[in-house]
């Protein structure tokens, strides 16, 4: 297979995977959480991963 074609294929594969990721991210973000589902703060109270988006400390940092 010619080198140029390989490079085009590589770029194509990366473009497809990146598109797949962005589509999945947007679709997931648009999907509402089920009712009564996320009392995160109680569930996260014992977790020390403060960099996680669910963690109560993160919400305080964002000023929510």
């Amino acid at each position, binding site marked *: *297979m010619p080198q140029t074609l*390989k490079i085009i*294929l*590589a770029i194509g*594969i*990366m473009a497809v*995977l*990146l598109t*797949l*990721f962005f589509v*999945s*991210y947007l*679709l*997931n973000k648009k*999907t*509402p*959480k*089920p009712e009564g*589902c*996320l009392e*995160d703060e109680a*569930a*996260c109270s*014992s*977790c*020390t*991963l403060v960099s*996680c*988006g*669910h963690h109560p400390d993160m919400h305080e940092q964002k000023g929510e």
Partner: protein
Amino acid sequence: MNLIVLAISAILINNFILTRFLGICPFLGVSRKISSALGMSLALILVVFSSAMLSYGFYFLVLKPLGLEYLYLVSFILIIASFVQFVEMFMKKYMVGLYKALGIYLPLITTNCVVLTVAIDVATKTNGITGVGFTFPEAIVYSLAVPVGYMIILILFSAMQEKLQINSKVPAPFKGNGIALVTAALMALAFAGFGGLI
């Protein structure tokens, strides 16, 4: 026989947490309660197995035939990240009960290095027994055995953590992550005893 040896090796002898020091962040963070540890472990089994199978298929059906093996790392990261997003979305819509139990751990798992390492291992490394790459059945066994090993350690460790939190004899400088790491080191020493098993 090789499959059994591979499973025992991945669960007890070459455990990811105790011998490769992978997934330490959730190991320390989500191990304060047994219920959290169990939820995290179950979500990890689902994600590790599925993403390893997807990555294995993508590597051998797309990247290798096209001679683009060097793209494996970026591809696997994107496959895992996309897969976790799809799983979370699917759970939100159709499996509300499961989402309530495991959904909170899914974003955490995306950044767990165990997931990426298992995907890389089954696709590009040798299996450590026959000295050649993983066959498909071996990849299935390995990608199930590694998170099961992770689950065993996480649950054992969280049981000890629950006791340590209420233990007033722990010296002040060791409280929290200090005593947790000492405990983890002792667990690693204990599990090193399984080294002669196979």
